[in-house]
């Protein structure tokens, strides 16, 4: 079991949990958190390198490092792991954000319990991304959800009880649909008389889900994951939840957990049920298309920094799901890039907001101003995050959005010219409009918060970022810029293994 590298993505956090439980003071806790998350980053880099090496050697399997250990034999439940470029990208993202998050919660109260929960959450996240067995996937998915409740409830701020409860219950609602969808898929995972399986690769290979069942199970799974992906109208947990959550939790949640939704939608819903995806995607295209614009519009009027960012996440994550539903290779590549990009920049945003809030004790942009004069470092980072968010070339947002738009447009035009209606086309153009609205709300915040004269004279005494805060933000900014400057590396990483998958999706039609 332990010769497979992937298993360490779960083992390391588990070991961290054990060590944390033994820790006696904050120094040890920090040490464990930092060393552990560094280890995770190293592990994901090693995985990436090995993966690329194997690909370069001409290995054509859809997934690598595939392994499967029987768990519940009678139900064919296995602990099956395997990764392709997408999962590796997500693992990389997660480990970076865990790392940055550890620094962002450097001075949190009750650090031991906090980090225990945080690392438990990351166990779920990593486990989810390495699993290719639907059962274990779902299990890790739920493992990741529950720590949120306590993290927000205990360490949060504002209306935290309400927010934490709402977030947990809504996400659980999603997973209720999801569980049913997954069990349904399981029972149709093999042709009549064949061995049923939870293994995604085998399900795709069998391609035996009857058409009627697909059109029932697809919405179930898509909505199930879509709730976590903040799909309209199931997004309302996100603003409240983010607003109340402590910094690192917002980072991890918006940065990684919301990606679980998009990833799941792709990996489970679309991967296994291409026919239904093709036929029913219009419903979800409309919903996600609305998400994109709607989130952006809502962000324009909010005055609480976290609300603004949460709505912006709704918009950006909507774009992820939107692109996935285009069922077009380019758009899907873009969706994955957008996941990476949004994960990093929104984590950066939340980190910065947390740092600003930690100093000013307010998140209302109407009560702040001129931060550039007071804390230039944080402000510059904020501007960079903002620029990434509104899609400035050279930063990650641009790459992702453009890939999505190009891909969607190709899909839309092809549809339109083939006489399949202009829905995709119209919604692509609507989604494109979000780049303007995004600019509006980002610049509005930047203008009000950072520029202009100092609003509150008491703020003049505030200090700029400490070294751990700088480390946290610099890490994220470097990653954002790396994706923005060298997109083709990520594009190839994602794209390479995309091909067979996409082929299976589109080959059906």
């Amino acid at each position: 079991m332990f010769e497979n590298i992937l298993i360490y993505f779960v083992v390391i956090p588990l070991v961290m949990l054990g060590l944390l439980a033994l820790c006696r003071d904050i120094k040890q806790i920090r040490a464990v958190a930092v060393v552990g998350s560094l280890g995770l980053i190293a592990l994901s880099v090693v995985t990436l390198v090995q993966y690329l090496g194997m690909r370069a050697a001409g290995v054509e399997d859809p997934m690598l490092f595939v392994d499967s250990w029987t768990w519940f034999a009678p139900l064919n439940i296995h602990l099956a792991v395997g990764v392709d470029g997408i999962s590796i990208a997500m693992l990389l993202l997660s480990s970076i954000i865990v790392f940055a998050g550890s620094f962002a919660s450097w001075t949190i109260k009750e650090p031991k319990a906090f980090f225990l929960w945080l690392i438990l959450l990351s166990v779920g996240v990593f486990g989810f991304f390495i699993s290719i067995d639907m059962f274990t996937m779902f299990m890790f998915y739920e493992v990741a959800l529950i720590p949120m409740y306590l993290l927000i409830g205990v360490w949060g701020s504002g209306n935290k009880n309400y927010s934490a409860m709402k977030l947990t219950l809504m996400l659980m609602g999603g997973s209720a649909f999801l569980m049913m969808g997954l069990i349904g898929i399981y029972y149709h995972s093999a042709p009549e008389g064949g061995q049923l399986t939870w293994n995604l690769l085998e399900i795709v290979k069998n391609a035996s889900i009857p058409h009627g069942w697909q059109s029932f199970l697809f919405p179930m799974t898509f909505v199930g994951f879509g709730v976590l992906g903040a799909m309209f109208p199931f997004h309302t947990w996100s603003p409240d939840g983010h607003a109340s959550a402590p910094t690192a939790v917002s980072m991890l949640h918006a940065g990684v957990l919301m990606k679980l939704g998009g990833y799941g939608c792709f990996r489970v819903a679309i991967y296994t049920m291409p026919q239904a995806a093709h036929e029913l995607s219009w419903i979800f295209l409309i919903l996600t298309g609305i998400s994109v614009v709607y989130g952006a519009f809502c962000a324009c009027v909010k005055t609480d920094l976290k609300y603004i960012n949460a709505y912006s996440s709704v918009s950006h994550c909507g774009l992820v799901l939107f692109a996935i539903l285009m069922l077009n290779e380019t758009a899907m590549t873009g969706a994955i890039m957008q996941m990476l990009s949004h994960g990093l920049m929104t984590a950066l945003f939340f980190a910065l907001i947390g740092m600003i809030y930690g100093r000013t004790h307010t998140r209302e942009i109407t009560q702040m101003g001129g931060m550039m004069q007071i804390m230039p470092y944080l402000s510059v980072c904020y501007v960079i995050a903002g620029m990434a968010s509104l899609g400035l070339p050279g930063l990650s947002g641009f790459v992702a959005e453009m890939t999505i738009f190009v891909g969607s447009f190709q899909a839309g035009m092809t549809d339109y010219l083939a006489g399949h209606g202009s829905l995709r086309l119209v919604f692509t153009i609507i989604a494109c409009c979000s780049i303007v609205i995004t600019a509006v709300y980002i610049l509005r915040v930047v203008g009000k918060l950072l520029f202009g004269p100092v609003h509150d004279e008491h703020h003049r005494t505030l200090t700029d970022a400490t070294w751990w805060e700088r480390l946290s933000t610099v890490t994220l900014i470097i990653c954002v810029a790396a994706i923005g400057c060298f997109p083709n590396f990520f594009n190839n990483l994602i794209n390479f293994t995309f091909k067979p998958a996409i082929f299976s999706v589109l080959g059906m039609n």
Partner: protein
Amino acid sequence: MDYSQFLAMKQEIALLCVFLLVFLYDTFMPRESQKGLPVFTVVLMLLATAAGFCSHCLGTSCQSEVFGGMYFTSPVVAAIKTILNIGVVIVLIQSIKWAGGELMIMRRGEFYELLLVTLFGMYLMVSARHFLVFVIGLECASLPLAAMVAFDKNRYESHEAAIKYILTAVFSSAVFMMGLSFVYGLTGSLYFDKIYAAVFGAESTLLVMAVAFVIAGIGFKLSLVPFHLWTADVYQGAPTSVTSYLSVISKGATAFAFLVVMAQVFGSVYSQVWEWMMYALIILTITVGNLFAIRQRNMKRFLAFSSISQAGYIMLGVIAYNALGLAAMMFYILVYIFSNLGAFGVIGAIENATGKVSMDDYRGLSKTNPKLSFVMMLAMFSLAGIPPFAGFFSKFFIFTGALQGASVAIYVLVLIALINTIISLYYYLLVVKAMYISEDECPVKNFKSACSERIGMWIAVAGILFLGLVSPVYDTLIELAANSEIATYFLR
């Protein structure tokens, strides 16, 4: 008469031995060594459990039918008895502190004797293949409980609970037997297999009413809605040890017996008569249980309603009507025993130490008693079905079992059940919230719980943590279920 037939009843005999030894100890041991009775019982019970378990492992618990087919045992029946035994052991361990108290000095022996008798009744229930034995088992299992509920002589609630329990229990058994009389009138027999053959294709008003009354009678013990109304009052009024016993062991045994009755007696009219009844009952049970649980502040009452809704989930194993469902149900019972006893362990410990049972008293508990709150939280998460705790697996398996049917109706049913898990998560989180998030000026002071209580809780925690993650338990159960004689009824 062939007395060797008694040898088939290994577990019953072991239990009787335990009972007799406890009785003898209680009667003849000097007063000063009476304090050792609880531990003595625990040890004996442990031995009996181990014996039962070993006999299963050695493969000696084979399928046999004795007393003219009135009594039946098989590996799967032995397994459920072992599961019950495990639960009883934990309950007994947790009750050592309470039973060792000054107030109990005169009645200590009675408590254990009554408890063992009810357990014996439950054994009979699950092993019965004739309604006479079944009724004797049922009454054996429920009447002594009334006395146990009334055990706290000094608490008024205890009396009120007992009177409510005995009155409704007797009423319910009257209704149940009325149903039986209809069955008898229709078929001329009280043997399960004969009734099975006789009711096949003979749907009539009388049969339907009979089934309804039988379901009502057994549903009373399972506290299915609308036969559940006694539950909350009794759970609240009874001593905590009795409540925990009532909520897990009694429920677990009845659930299994219920499945046996529904499959082996009325299995031939599954889809014609009682499938829809069960749908209605399950939806009602889960929903109403949840709705009531939301508002409860008393922890015992809260867990009463939680156990009502859990019973609804257990019933999914019945409605699944397949081997997966049976295995999942047994697994669910096992997990439920551990989770619920974890919760009751904490409640009992706090009640013994401070006398507080309200959820509001739990505020800030995590600051003063972190370990207790940790156990409670695990129990709550497990009950809510959160991975990686055992409750998640049991819930997942029971849904998997139910959905094997693949009819639209069952999907709708499962969907409703799943949506109800959101509500249940809400109220379980309320407890977690009270302990971890809410602040209170004067939380429960830090105290050291008794060694026995701690052992009980640790066992529960171990179960919660490992039952799900360690697959052989479930694998064994499903193997037993698939090869059991009940499974043959599913296929017909």
